[in-house]
């Protein structure tokens, strides 16, 4: 059993837009989502720029059709997953064996950390309702219920590669004829917990990040959610608009080097990209665009760049890090960037790597700096690498 996996729809929310249309617009106009903190309350407010979704919890709840007391992580998830499902043109998911696989890393931490402020002062204070959605699985359950998906619901948590892994678990379930339709991707909201944590690691940029630049200083944190709808061939054929593309390859590998740092030669990144190519039966030369993990940290970009240098030898595809628009959305990044990869094939787009100025001296290639459309894009590689050495690559191909 080895059935192909088709992509039928996408949904996304991030600092640069609340839906796919707004994203296309911002990507074309080069509008980055970073700004001063507005919704997150932190002591680093004026020092560290972040890429927030430009809506309060109340506004998000309104958009999602859910109560405002649930975690921001779950609200973002519901909005993007719903868009993806609607866009897919599948009328009634109850007809099919449908799954929802969602990744995140912070769960309902945004609610929990605010609960604790009052609770620690006085153990009778604070509303328990705010912490019942703390664990990572809760955000998934809320969205699954909201979408009416019951057949298969799962949460994956492997740091910043989480949602890429969610997508390829979904693909496997379709390939093996266990499910017909899978909505997969991830979500994460900005929290003080993650901001302070990344701040202690000293990898946050106080300016807007510059991925793959010689003078890169670190990453900007972002938030959002991104999902793709994957379907079996049978369903793909039944869709009026037809599928957008296929998920032709994927691979996960461990860098086995350090908890948070990538190995200097990017072993994990190399193995993941190479494995995805092998799975699809494609050659490095077939790839038209790479959506880089490209966080903007010294360590990630040199490791990822070195792996690309090794794998692609001297014929480098176009590439860019869209984290220069959305910031690093952690558990959501693989999902959001999968959406960008699908859109790249669908509309022939190559996105710019904003604020790129100086080539890295170790690398013989540079990222794209301008937006272009109408390009012949047949195969797109999307990289997502996470703490714990967890490295994943997804490969999307034109049908």
């Amino acid at each position, binding site marked *: 059993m080895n059935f192909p996996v088709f992509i039928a729809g996408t949904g996304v929310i991030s600092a640069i837009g609340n839906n796919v249309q707004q994203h296309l617009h911002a990507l074309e106009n080069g509008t980055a989502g970073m700004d001063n903190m507005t919704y997150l309350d932190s002591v680093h407010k004026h020092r560290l720029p972040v890429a927030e979704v430009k809506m309060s919890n109340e506004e998000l709840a309104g958009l999602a059709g859910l109560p405002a007391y649930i975690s921001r992580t779950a609200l973002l998830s519901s909005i993007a997953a719903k868009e993806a499902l609607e866009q897919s043109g599948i009328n009634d998911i109850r007809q099919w064996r449908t799954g929802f696989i969602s990744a995140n890393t912070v769960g309902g931490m945004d609610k929990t950390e605010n609960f604790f402020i009052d609770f620690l002062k006085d153990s009778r204070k604070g509303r328990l309702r705010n912490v019942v959605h703390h664990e990572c699985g809760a955000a998934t359950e809320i969205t699954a219920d909201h979408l009416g998906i019951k057949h298969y619901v799962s949460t994956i948590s492997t740091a910043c590669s989480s949602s890429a892994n969610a997508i390829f678990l979904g693909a496997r379930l379709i390939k093996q004829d266990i499910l017909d339709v899978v909505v997969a991707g991830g979500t994460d909201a900005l929290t003080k917990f993650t901001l302070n944590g990344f701040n*202690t*690691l*000293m990898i946050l940029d106080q300016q807007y990040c510059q991925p793959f630049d010689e003078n890169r200083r670190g990453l900007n944190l972002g938030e959002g959610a991104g999902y793709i709808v994957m379907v079996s061939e049978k369903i793909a054929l039944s869709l009026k608009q037809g599928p957008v593309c296929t998920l032709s390859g994927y691979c996960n590998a461990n860098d086995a080097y*350090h*908890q*948070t*740092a990538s190995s200097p030669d990017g072993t994990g990144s190399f193995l993941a990209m190479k494995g995805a190519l092998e799975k699809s039966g494609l050659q490095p030369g077939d790839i038209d665009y790479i959506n880089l993990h490209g966080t903007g940290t010294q360590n990630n970009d040199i490791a990822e760049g070195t792996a690309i240098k090794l794998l692609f030898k001297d014929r480098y595809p176009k590439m860019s890090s869209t984290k220069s628009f959305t910031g690093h959305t952690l558990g959501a990044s693989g999902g959001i960037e999968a959406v960008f990869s699908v859109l790249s094939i669908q509309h022939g787009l190559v996105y710019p790597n904003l604020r790129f100025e100086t080539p890295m001296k170790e690398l013989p290639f540079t990222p794209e700096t301008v937006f272009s459309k109408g390009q012949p894009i047949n195969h797109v590689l999307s990289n997502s690498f996470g703490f714990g050495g967890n490295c994943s690559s997804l490969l999307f191909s034109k049908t």
Partner: protein
Amino acid sequence: MADLKKQIIEQLNLKDVKPEDIGDDQPLFVEGLGLDSIDALELIVLLQQEYKIKLANAEEGQSVFRSVRTMAQYITEHQPKTV
């Protein structure tokens, strides 16, 4: 410097290391004590906690944390003057 060694051992959970095992000029990272980047960040926390010294960026740490002696020198030079 003996105090500093004790503090380093405690901050970094180097349970099997004794203060006298660390030479004053022994490199702390890689080939010496084998510390890594997270340890460097913990040393920055140590400076802040024990000596109220704030290192602005992680790169600065490279020269400061070369050995116990360079660390001690940095502390003497940068400690805020209190009564």
